[in-house]
């Protein structure tokens, strides 16, 4: 049954002063003032997300400064938001045959689903703990390799977390 909506015209004079409602509200406020606080003073007070948190996807950078990624484009294929754009190329320098000449994630498209991390055969793309993303233009939101590559050591926790589920 649909509850009948009460309009202002339906209220009597006393109800229209709202005095009882104001006291009801204030009593709740005073009761809560003395209880435990749940809010935090963000951004002065930072929040450290749990390790299962899916922040912005980043690329794992090996010790020699290159990316782990072999430009297989499986992440680009699985990405439901079509956020990832990769151009592969051949390399003769490292033990791998191909590398991403270009690797870009459009952070305006990304929905932080983590599919890219899940599909990657090389553990080369992982979800970081970072969630503070600010851009002032559309172009700025397209992260290239410069912004995406993060040294492996910094991602160790996440990589270990992922191992449990392999």
């Amino acid at each position, binding site marked *: 049954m649909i509850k009948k909506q009460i309009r202002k015209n339906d209220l009597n004079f006393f109800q229209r002063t709202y005095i009882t409602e104001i006291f009801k509200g204030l009593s709740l406020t005073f009761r809560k003032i003395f209880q435990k606080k749940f809010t935090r003073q963000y951004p002065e007070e930072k929040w450290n997300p749990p390790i299962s948190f899916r922040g912005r996807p980043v690329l794992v950078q090996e010790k020699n400064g290159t990316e782990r990624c*072999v*430009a*297989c*484009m*499986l992440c680009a*294929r699985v990405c439901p938001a079509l956020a990832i754009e990769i151009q592969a190329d051949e390399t003769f320098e490292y033990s791998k*045959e*191909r590398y991403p000449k270009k690797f870009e994630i459009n952070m305006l498209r990304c929905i932080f689903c983590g599919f890219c991390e899940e599909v990657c055969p090389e553990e080369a793309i992982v979800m970081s703990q970072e969630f503070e993303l600010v851009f002032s233009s559309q172009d700025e939101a*397209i992260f290239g390799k410069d912004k995406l590559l993060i040294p492996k050591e910094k991602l160790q926790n996440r990589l270990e977390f992922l191992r449990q589920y392999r």
Partner: protein
Amino acid sequence: MNVSITIDGKKIDCDFSKTVIQVAQENGTSIPHFCWHPSLSVSGNCRMCLVDVGMPKRNREGQIEVDANGNPITQFMPKLAIACSTQVADGMVVETKSDKIINAREAVMEFILINHPLDCPICDEAGECKLQDYAYKHSVGESRFEFEKVQKPKRVAIGKNVMLDNERCIMCSRCIRFCDEIVKEPSLVFSERGDNVTLTTFPGTSLDNSYSMNTIDLCPVGALTSKDFRFKARVWDMSFTDSICVGCSRGCNTTVGVRNNEILRLTPRLNENVNSYWMCDDGRLNTFEFVNKNRIKQPMIKRDGKFSECEWDEAISKTISELKRFSPSEILVIGSPFATNEDNFLLKKFAKQVLKTENICFFNHIVEGNKDELLILEDKTPNSFALKEFGFGNGNNFLQMISEKKIRAVYLLEDNIATDETIVNLLSNVDFIVTHSPNLNATTQIASVVFSSSTYAEKNGTLTNFEGRVQRIRPSVATLEHDRALDGFAMSRLDQFGAHNDRWTKGEKRDARSSWKIILNVANGFGAKWKYNTAEDVFKEICLNVKSFENMSYAKISNKGLLLKKMEMYV
């Protein structure tokens, strides 16, 4: 002689010379296979095509035994047989779907995959790989092999255009048989034994025949890859459009692979009447570069010896006012064996009805001696047959008139004729040259007005090959004239779901138009009042006006082509 066999309970009448796999395929039962190929000899080494084969059981008197219900009893062979080399026989019973066969296939797959590297993520074949597909369809999906795989050389350049990854090779020998049987230049061979078998070239040689890249298409896995296409794109990111190779007058049927409005790959498309499964390396590698690069992006007019880009209307009115300065006999109209039937037909109509000139010709592009038994032909243009059919004269007959200054204006369709000094000098006698061209070249340099025209990959139309077969081309690269979505192009996933501000949908779109459309605009500028909305409208008129094109239509040509009337008796 016809025999009757039963495949999976279905009775089929077929010729006795056929093999089980052929008959099955012709009748809609596909039997998985790696080494068998319709155009190559039977090698029977992959064992993927195993089927159960039986014959009616006969008693000592030779009579067929029947069961209680009167049905003949089938006696199956004790072991499974390979369908690719088993010839059919009267009364034969073939099972392709029983549990026994499914188990056998899974076992074969398991063996093949034992030493196959886990390369799919970096392998160009992934997405169009037989082994990958069969691993889903005919395999259990898990490996029981716990030891180290055999390691073999990867990234071996076995030819100018072909790269070999020996670990991925499944030893089907298709590539070897192709070189031996089709090109007839044996160059590949297996060496070593057992799981060390390695594909290699004969000592001191390499895979460098004119058709070497067909081995890449033949290879059921990613062992042979194209050096040109290597790592350029994933196949699932491209769109594919049926087209025709414009490298020579054979007109091999092709598939154009496009990503981000750029052609990345050409592959041959089956047409038994033209090119079978093959195309030559030259055609594959050299006929798409000019679509992607060195393009004229807009019409241009030469002022004081310098070109400046301009609007279409300006270039058209300039052309009209210039052409009006000359009498009809002073104008030479040159068709192009690189342009379509539609372009040339309309050009001729324009010359006759609007310019009223009789000087209509074209230039051949014959490279003498550059031909072979298989596909390559001396005539390096895709459409010279049609120009002869439409009555274009030989260009060389008009050179004399140019040198005598009887010709003062030239209207030229897409053809780079100013390739040598004598012609350049001759053309300097001409006051006004207007040309259609997709690319900057020597001829556009000496022209006064240049119309930016579409390439074969950007327009609808037909080409007529050396034996008079009319074949369709369709646009695969978008220009300002055509929109990928609205004009029904093949669309990749990226084309379908990309927004206008995604970088990968921003591939260059040139302001080029089909030549027939440019001619139409110029003719109507002269007051011709022609009405053609599509290339098909022009083609309909060709069919009404040119005897040998009678009764043709785009629908009838479809993607296999159609022979001209008068040529039918020769083939």
